[in-house]
């Protein structure tokens, strides 16, 4: 490894470690980069000065916040990796009154980090140079973020990477979804009555989900056209897609679009940026 190899670190806040596992699958960095800190695989007690700091997970506890604030000044560039770091991710499902009530019933604990009232995206506290969405981002996307992001070529939307054909003679009347058993190969999932949002989701993941027969739930977030817009525009665009390919009533689409597994991912750049702040600039999103 060259002496001047890029030095990078991975700071894991409250998340599932899936982002780290994905990075481990991107083996190419091993020969070229110096991994200075990543508790999952390296025993080192503190983040040293680095060129790139990847941050995964959301800010859920006071300890997360402390670790984040301490690490940031030691990095030349900060990348927010994965939905949790960008929007709070799956923990945002807890951002509802009835769930907050349940959290309050937790027993009193000592000597453990204190929970903040909600799970925050990291840019609620620190400046972020680049966003790498995905739950988790694929190894290919990790490599692109670490190497030269400008060189990375991705399709605009997941549909273009999926390879399933949209057909005219198959117009479902309802979203029957997975209840119908086996999925037909090669034909667009929307034609088959699934609620797939690949048409408005940014490409770059190579569409593993719809290829595997499961509708895209939009973990990469909205495509560039929609990224800085709020959820209302996104909902309208989804309605248009389903109107042109199906006869499913608009109310059914609306309900599916507002369901929890969609809320996890879709508005990660706009709605979750917080009311008092503008959407994240799309130039910063890989």
């Amino acid at each position, binding site marked *: 490894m060259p002496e001047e190899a890029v030095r990078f670190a991975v700071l*894991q806040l*409250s*998340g*599932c*470690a*899936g*982002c780290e*596992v*994905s990075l*481990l*699958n991107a*083996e190419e960095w*091993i020969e070229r980069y110096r*991994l200075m800190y990543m*508790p*999952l*695989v*390296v*025993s*080192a*007690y503190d983040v040293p000065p680095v060129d790139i700091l990847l941050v995964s997970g959301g800010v*859920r*506890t006071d*300890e997360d916040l402390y670790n984040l604030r301490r690490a940031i000044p030691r990095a030349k560039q900060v990348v927010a990796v994965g939905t949790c770091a960008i929007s709070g991710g*799956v*923990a945002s*499902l*807890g951002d*509802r009154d*009835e*769930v907050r009530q*349940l*959290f309050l019933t*937790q027993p009193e*604990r*000592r*000597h*453990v*980090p204190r929970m903040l009232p909600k*799970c925050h995206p990291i840019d609620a506290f620190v400046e972020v140079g680049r966003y790498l969405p995905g*739950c*988790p981002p*694929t190894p290919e996307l990790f490599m692109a973020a670490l190497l030269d992001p400008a060189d990375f070529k991705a399709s605009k939307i997941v549909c273009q990477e999926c390879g399933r054909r949209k057909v005219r003679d198959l117009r479902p009347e309802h979203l029957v*979804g*997975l*209840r*119908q*058993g*086996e*999925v037909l*190969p090669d034909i667009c999932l929307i034609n088959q009555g699934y609620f797939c949002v690949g048409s408005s989701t940014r490409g770059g993941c190579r569409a*593993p*989900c719809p290829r*595997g*027969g*499961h509708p895209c739930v939009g973990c990469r977030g909205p495509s560039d056209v929609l990224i800085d817009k709020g959820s209302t525009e996104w909902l309208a665009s989804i309605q248009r897609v389903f109107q042109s390919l199906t006869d499913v009533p608009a109310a059914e689409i609306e309900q599916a679009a507002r*369901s*929890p*597994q969609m809320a*996890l991912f879709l508005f990660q750049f706009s709605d979750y940026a917080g009311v008092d702040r503008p959407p994240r600039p799309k130039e910063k999103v890989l």
Partner: protein
Amino acid sequence: MPTLTFPLSRIEGHAQVTIDVQNGRPVSARFQAMEFRGFEYLVQGVPAEQMPVIVPRICGVCSTAHHVAAVRALEDAFGLTPPPLAQTIRELLMLGQIVQNQATSLFIFTMPDRLGVSSIFQADSAAADADQGIASRALRVRRAGTSLISLAGGQFIHPIKAIVGGVTSGIAPEAAEVVRGEVEAALGLACELFDIYWEMSLALRDRIGTWGDDEPACYIAATGEDAPRYTDDTIRVMCPDGCCHEAFPARDFRKHLDFVESEYSYADATSYRGQVIRANSLARANMTQAMGTPLADGYLERFRQAFGRPAHGLLLFDLARGIELVYALERALEIMAGPLSGEDTAIPYTPRDGDGYGMVEAPRGPLIHHYRIENQKIVQAEFVIPTVHNMLAIERALRVVAARYITGESINMELERAVGRVVRAFDPCIACATH
């Protein structure tokens, strides 16, 4: 009273060990899980059928186990039995999880302890010539697990192919062929690395003078009696002397296991009739008759000759993981030699309300998801996590090393390494344990 604190690395998630010392003697050892997201609360009100997508996010290391457990819990609630081909594809998926996890635990988490380095990515510069390439070989083995997960699960980390009633589709022969080649190559590498690992473990035993001298414990697993199966419906418990067994279905877990909440950790702990239990690789190695594949059976025989049955030494968890790694690669090759498409992979279904219990044997032990469904939404969810079964066993073992290395006059510097070895032997997963 001074407290020694040991932050932990090379395990999944945020945890630390604290040992209180009084008058030169350790008086307590605590294993503290330091994170919490509250999945049992987060999923309240979620449409039940979305659970297989949401719950893998409990943990990116064990996502496959959660994905399959969720699907099985819903099938239990809806009264469904998936077609045989779906069961086979799910087995392949679980084998991928075992390969990925055991390769990670052995080579990335614990091998550095045997090499005396802080990470495997430094191993090649530190170790002798003969060990060159350990990191890249280890990653190739691990990668075979990932490829199996992608092949059978569609997605490489949070899989999507298991659906209520089966799996979305079969596996095309060409796709299987590519992964078969990778797995075959990985099997050779895995055996090579495991042999090195075994030698290193012997050297470690010689240096520290023990395989881990904690007392025997009960063992708990949800794998088959004659060969490992990772999607069984029965949990079994083996008593410390290995003679008596008890078996019960997943839905009865509360009748047999006691749960205690901890005030210093975000994870609970379980016990069995007041006794300490151990789950994970050693439990499975102790409880199965045989592995059922040639190379793995060879290793198991060697293991039993050296350590008896049941084996109790803590570091034997790691060796048992190696046997399973070899087994999972061999078994995956067997499955991929047969057809994986051309039959039904899923049945249509109508959802209904009620209770559902879904179990799998995850890399760390029996994992149970229990959902109560009303109006097609989750009103109650319980996640019974394998690492939680090991909590009392981890703390008991920590007290043993604390007593060994803290003496009236001094603290042996080996203590910190010993703490790391004890915890890593159990391969705890903190994201899961606290969920």
